[in-house]
């Protein structure tokens, strides 16, 4: 068991966990996102009523987490495509670090603009 854990505790494993969990959470979020935008079918006021929710600090925090998840899934996915389609280099850890850094930068960009 301890050996199992030791074998998994490395950047590539954590990149896999983040990619899988962010993908699942985004898939769960999307129907709600689509239903909210679909309110425009009932008029601008209806959509605006729902958008007022986004002024609440708790919703802004949740949105920032969602943006982080989306950015992390994007950068982690690009990392995977590079690993699969480009020639092998000894850059696994560097790619994971770049992916994490880029995702955090996007999250901060959103948080600063939405605040």
């Amino acid at each position: 068991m301890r050996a199992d854990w030791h074998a998994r505790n490395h950047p590539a494993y954590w990149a896999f966990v983040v990619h899988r969990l962010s993908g699942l959470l985004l898939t769960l979020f999307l129907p709600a996102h689509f239903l909210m935008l679909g309110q425009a079918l009932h008029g601008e006021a209806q959509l605006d009523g729902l958008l007022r929710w986004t002024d609440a600090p708790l919703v802004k925090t949740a949105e920032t987490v969602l943006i982080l998840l989306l950015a992390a899934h994007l950068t982690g996915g690009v990392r995977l495509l590079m690993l699969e389609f480009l020639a092998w280099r000894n850059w696994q850890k560097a790619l994971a670090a770049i992916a994490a850094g880029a995702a955090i930068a996007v999250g901060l960009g959103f948080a600063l603009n939405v605040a």
Partner: protein
Amino acid sequence: MTAAAQTRLWLAQRASAAVLAFCVVVHLAVIIYAVRGGLSAAEILARTQGSLPWAGFYALFVVAVAVHASVGVRAVALEWLHLRGRALGVLVALVAAVLLGLGLRAVWAVYA
């Protein structure tokens, strides 16, 4: 599942990922720009209503998401929930149908 079918799923996942990489970068840039000063329906609809380029972009985005997420959920259900056969097929079809149906409805809602 046959090896040929698995290859098709792998290809669908990577092809949709490549489309999504482009779509998500554009979407994130629009989000970060749009949230400055708060979100409003008027601002969103001013950008999207009657705009064929935006409708086309978001329709492509939705189709790619429906493919990508359903194949992704299939892998998770297979490995973590040990779903097989008909149950797995039904779950994948359901995820794809919900995302495609609600997604295209949302695209139409902000375009029409």
